[in-house]
């Protein structure tokens, strides 16, 4: 990638990210929101996070694939589920994935 292309990419990503993050707080002002709206908003996090986890662990481009990383994330999930910290979970995920790829 040329230097000009790189900086176009960075500027573009920065501008679009800042605009998206600013949109809600600016457009909505300090208005009170209805209860049904807040219930939906509270459920955005589980919906989006579950999608991010599954897509990043299972998608390889535009197809689904179970790989060493999928196994690593699954074992880490068990560790997290049993009360392990996020940093322990990440360490386990990396170790299991690397081990499976080494054998």
């Amino acid at each position, binding site marked *: 990638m040329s230097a000009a292309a790189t900086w176009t990419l960075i500027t573009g*990503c920065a501008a679009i990210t800042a605009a998206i993050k600013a949109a809600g707080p600016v457009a909505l002002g300090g208005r009170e929101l209805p209860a049904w709206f807040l219930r939906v*908003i509270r459920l955005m996090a589980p919906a989006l996070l579950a999608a991010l986890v599954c897509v990043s662990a299972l998608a390889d481009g535009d197809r689904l694939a179970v790989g060493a990383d999928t196994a690593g994330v699954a074992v880490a999930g068990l560790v997290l589920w049993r009360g392990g910290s996020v940093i322990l*979970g990440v360490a386990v995920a990396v170790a299991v994935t690397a081990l499976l790829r080494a054998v």
Partner: protein
Amino acid sequence: MSTIASTSRRSWRAGLRAGLPYAAAGFLLSLSFGVLARETGMSAGATIAMSAIVFAGSAQFAAISIVAAGGGLGAAVVAAALTNSRFLPMGIALAPSLPGGPLKRAAQGQTVVDSSWAMAAQGDGSFDRWFLFGSSAIQYVTWVGGTVAGALGGDVLGDPHKLGLDAIFPTFFLALLLAELRDARARRVAALGALIALALVPLTPPGVPVLAASLAALLGLARRTVDA
């Protein structure tokens, strides 16, 4: 010192503490980003600048992977926008908890990152904004720090694929997700969101599956709460 100022300071410190494990994991995540970005031909300076200015992990990975796959700059920026689109509902949720005029509100909105946003939610629809700022501040420091380490030290590390660094990203978000699954309704919404996303992976451009998964939150329109 007024009561409000001391409450803010307490929230800020609580946010710093709560953000610490995510900041540590974020260091590893951004380290892997630094290594991958250098592999696509970006200079170390540009790689570090991207983390410092964009500060959005999933969008940075999305943009870089499209460039690495030979996609255009436009496609890369659109992918970043789609990946970041989840910050739109997050910003809408946060809006009532932010004081000040448009500029100040826009600036405060920049501090939203997934873990901080999720942890700053107080369960009644409102957010502790100083907690949010504290948690994001410490994650910003390690996000840039990890990128510096990856961008400058990647050659020492070796092949990021062999090292299993690609498992960091999903695990990071899995930790956030598990903290959200407190009640039956949240678990149903998470399952539905995952199904929507996985069904769309073969059919849509990257970014769209995750954005479409937010539709699962519409289950919240039903008034009856299972958890109560």
